[in-house]
């Protein structure tokens, strides 16, 4: 570890010597293990490590960033010099000088809590569990493809800045999921557990995998995948929609998490990820949602072991909880040290995150969560006279200002007279963000609340993938447009 601090200090010293007025450095060591099975055979079996350093500087009032995996004094010094040189080039086309919100210096070390280090669990046991779950799904008639996966990451980062911070963080991240696909006639149907696109991911150890009881759920989703072919088509109508927590997590991500990113709002992502309908004049004025909706961006461990949980962001700002929607009103953005002052904040909200040592930190979601409501799940269903319950995302899309969205899910159930009466296939719903959230009329309580992990959020140029957390419990929405994706009109 001393070596990493030496390299960080060397980088900052060189940057200062070359003319940087500010600098920060992230040395990172990332380890990852990927295991998959398909149809009873091992698919991917791979492990990787990546070590390097990224140096961000301000020189001549402009930003520069360079990264290298040549971790020698000379290599790092050359990289720091290059970062300064790039910053000076940026100044050739810079409209305003960089101004950073004040922040204290921190000397700290933090490790995310976990009970079982997934890298210490025998590989044979991990593969045996996946193959057993795969086998359970393959027993079901009509299932034509079975897939399982586990992914583990251990990330060490050493952050140092020219204001004197020295912060070491170690994060252990685990994830797993299973899926059964059925092809019959002219139709492919799929069910996944506990979520689609890789399952559930969290800042936890192997205990996450054990808690998910893959073997118990494998036959259930396999039966559902096969049964979907005979299910009725989800109708096209305006009606009452109940969303399972895993789908609601993604709804939050797309229609609240992204629009509140201040870099988008300020046009910095206009060429790729897009902008936002949440222009600065909307803050503290817009009625984003119904009055029962409360959303926070909370990176603190108190909120839970989410993919957006940390002690400090990648700009050296401590983890915080920010009100985003309070009693339905729009209250806050995700900001960094460069943008905080533009919305009248004295300090960054601590959301700068980087995928790896070779990427620039950018504003990212932390854990953007819908706080629990008051409903028991069974009561919510029995209180629904006529509705559709949708579970597990199948596709997702939203416009580049985050107004209009469309989601489809793997499965749905029709609710009549307070009871789930039949399975529906090919469900989808769509709407306008603020209209949708203002139609929220019931949210389940904490007993049904899960901090879902979205491990695949892409943003930035060059593209970075980031994990984000989204706490959600099942919730009910009125007068939602349902079934459009499969409309034959």
């Amino acid at each position: 570890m001393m070596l990493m601090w030496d390299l960080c200090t060397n980088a900052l010293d060189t940057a200062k010597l070359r003319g940087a007025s500010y600098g920060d450095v992230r040395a990172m060591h990332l380890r990852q293990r990927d295991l998959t099975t398909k149809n009873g055979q091992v698919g991917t079996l791979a492990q990787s490590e990546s070590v390097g350093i990224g140096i961000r500087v301000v020189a001549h009032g402009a930003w520069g960033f360079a990264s290298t995996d040549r971790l020698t004094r000379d290599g790092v010094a050359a990289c720091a010099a290059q970062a300064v040189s790039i910053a000076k080039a940026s100044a050739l086309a810079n409209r305003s000088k960089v101004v950073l919100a004040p922040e204290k210096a921190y000397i700290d070390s933090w490790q995310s809590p976990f009970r079982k280090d997934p890298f210490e669990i025998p590989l044979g046991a991990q593969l045996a569990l996946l193959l057993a779950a795969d086998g359970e799904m393959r027993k079901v008639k009509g299932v034509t493809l079975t897939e399982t996966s586990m992914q583990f990451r251990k990330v060490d980062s050493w952050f140092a800045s020219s204001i004197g911070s020295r912060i070491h963080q170690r994060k252990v991240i685990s994830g797993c999921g299973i899926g059964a696909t059925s092809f019959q006639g002219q139709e492919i149907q799929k069910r996944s557990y506990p979520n689609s696109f890789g399952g559930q991911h969290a800042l936890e150890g192997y205990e996450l995998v054990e808690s998910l009881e893959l073997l118990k759920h494998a036959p259930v989703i396999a039966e559902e995948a096969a049964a979907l072919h005979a299910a009725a088509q989800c109708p096209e109508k305006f009606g009452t929609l109940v969303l399972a927590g895993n789908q609601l997590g993604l709804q939050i991500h797309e229609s609240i998490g992204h629009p509140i990113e201040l870099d988008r709002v300020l046009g910095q992502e206009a060429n790729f990820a897009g902008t936002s309908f949440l222009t600065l004049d909307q803050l503290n004025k817009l009625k984003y949602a119904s009055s029962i909706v409360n959303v926070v961006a909370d990176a603190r461990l108190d909120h839970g072991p989410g993919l957006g949980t940390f002690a400090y962001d990648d700009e050296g700002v401590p983890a915080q909880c920010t009100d985003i929607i309070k009693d339905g009103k729009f209250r806050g953005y995700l900001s960094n040290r460069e943008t905080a002052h533009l919305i009248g904040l004295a300090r960054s909200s601590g959301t700068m995150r980087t995928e790896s040592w070779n990427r620039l930190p950018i504003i990212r979601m932390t854990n953007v969560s819908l706080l629990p409501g008051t409903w028991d799940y069974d009561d919510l269903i029995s209180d629904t006279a006529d509705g559709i319950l949708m579970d597990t995302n199948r596709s997702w899309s939203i416009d580049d200002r985050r107004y209009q969205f469309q989601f489809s899910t793997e499965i749905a159930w029709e609710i009549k007279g307070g009871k789930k009466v039949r399975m529906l296939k090919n469900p989808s719903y769509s709407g306008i963000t603020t209209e949708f959230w203002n139609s929220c009329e019931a949210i389940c309580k904490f007993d049904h609340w899960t901090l879902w992990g979205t491990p695949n959020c892409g943003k930035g140029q060059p593209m970075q993938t980031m994990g984000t957390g989204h706490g959600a419990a099942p919730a009910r929405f009125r007068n939602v447009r349902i079934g459009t994706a499969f409309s034959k009109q």
Partner: protein
Amino acid sequence: MTIAPSARRKISGKKHAELLPARELRGIIETVLRLAKSTVASETEVHIDEVAYSLTRFANNGIHQNVFEHCATVSVRTVTGGRTARATTNRLDEDSLRRAIEASLSLAHSEPRDPRLLPMPAKQRYRTVDRFVKATAALTPEERARAVRLACDWASKKGQVAAGIFSSGQSQTTVGNSRGLFATYCETHSQFSITMQEDPAASWAKADSADVREIHPQELAERAGKKARLAVKTSELAPGRYTVILEPAAVLDLVGFMFYDFAATAVEDKRSCLNNRIGKQLFGKNISISDDVFHPRQKGAPFDGEGMPRQKVLLVDRGVPKNLVYSRASAKIARKKPTGHGFALPNEYGEAPMNLVFSGGDSSVEKMVASTDRGLLVTRLWYIREVDPYEKVMTGMTRDGLFLVENGKLTGAVRNFRFNQSLLDMLNHVELMSPAVRATGEESFEMVVPAMKIGKFHFSEVTKF
């Protein structure tokens, strides 16, 4: 003993980064193969991937991000007792390479024996392609900044706001194995992408080339700026089925979602839209598509993840899916020859075509507009996702310039639509095509595709802008 080459890499003292020379790539591979000989590995494969990449990013008419990265990774796959696994590191010293071999073997030991595992391929012959342009590799941050400055100044002069990227770089990939196979390839990359905003509208243009001299930032800025001005005043149309003219980037981003279905493994897994459809008239007779890494407008290595030479494959012939692409494993199952499209092993996806070339036509966007009584000209599509995997229904939004065409002329801009459109249906309604060009978008990899005039394109909802 091979000297750890990382100590010789240079990132300073020259205007641009230097990639590892060929002798050092060979040296790393020989080191890994030598170290692996003293283990229980019966076969060993080594991949080396190296990238030196710069990207200048601008928004609000100024540079706000400007980055450089240089990274080399060595990935080792070992085989022992009919089992195989992969370990990857970016530490190139001998101890780290030895640890990667050991990690690979440790992973492999944990799995059941794979009866389908094939011996590694022996030495192959490759057709050479040259896509390394010194001018691109040598491009400096100052040169990118000056080009960005010109584009931003033009935007300011027109009362517009520019955002975008100017990137350049070089990469190389090398594969070697213990049976004597060795393949290496390097190329350069450059892209310029620009969004011009004139409140409340925006438009976009982008170019991609191995040769930065083929990138013309000012022309792209002016093209996007003119379209943004045209889009300032929008009207709202009702959703429904429209004749559309998709510019090449819009075609690219949409059809790109279909080609993983041309993998033999996807068909074997019954997750492909081609299940039970190979050899049938699935698309219009004007649609022919090849995968051809050697096409002059294509890029990429002429070998696959196992080092097998890529072949040109005719995927669709006059609307009929004729051929799939095969890795060695899927070829053996299907009793076909490998086409050189396999991913690095081990993996569960098998293979995919990555160098798509559409046959195209002899029309042009201008002629398509002139031939249209009522329709929509689409600049770009956004956030495309699959709704129905078998009918290949995709959803997404139009973005950055959607224009109404009436009586052969552009008559105004309209609010963006959401579409829910089957690609199979769409490629049965292609009325006109331009010659295919190298196109670049944001949702699919670059391809050689035409602009297309398409009938009965399904827009399901409209958004607020």
